[in-house]
């Protein structure tokens, strides 16, 4: 892994279209600015990881556990 030191307002370029700048540093938190073409999607890694974990959990489903929604709902009262 390439490790670079940057100060506030300094940037790195990834290729010739993606620019990442250090906007602010406070304590243990770094604020980054990212300019990239719209086709490049930028997400926090935790979002990806959370969805991956949820999918792995979802894939464990036992087919016999799949209920019918109607069976789970409380029966509507008839007047």
């Amino acid at each position, binding site marked *: 892994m390439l490790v670079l030191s940057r100060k506030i307002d300094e940037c790195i370029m990834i290729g010739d279209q993606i620019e990442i700048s250090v906007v602010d540093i406070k304590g243990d938190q770094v604020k980054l600015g990212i300019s990239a073409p719209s086709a490049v999607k930028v997400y926090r890694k935790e979002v*990806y990881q959370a969805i991956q*974990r949820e999918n792995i959990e979802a894939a464990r489903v036992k087919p016999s556990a799949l209920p019918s929604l109607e069976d789970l709902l409380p029966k509507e009262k008839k007047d």
Partner: protein
Amino acid sequence: MGSIRVLTKAYGAVEVDERQKLLFPGGILGFENLKEYVLLDAAQPPFYWLQSLEAVEIAFVLLDPRVFRPDYSLEVAPEELAEIGLHSPEEALDFAIVTIPEDPKEMTANLQGPVLINRAGRLGRQAISTNPRWELRHPIMKELALARKK
């Protein structure tokens, strides 16, 4: 177009129309190596199964989020739609993946990572919602009960 024989986690071997076959070029997050799926009606409506054609034990329960969230709208980046040849959210067939814990009443739907399908192109993709209102675990039964009260 003929029918194909598919091994499913839920129903064993079944014959399905070849048009139910979907290619997920990027896979599903956490299962990036699995690209081919079929979409099947579950025996328990309104659920569907997204069954992997490459690993029989991998199948996801899908649900149209509007079933329990009438206010739901698909909010994803246009680039995510373009990846599977779609131009607007209205063109997508979209689902939430359902997680069913031990007590099925506690089942949740993932609206943060909606599954998008281009029906005509038979392509699929798991996108990431651009609206933080749509979360990883929506309690289906609670929200369904709320929707019915209104």
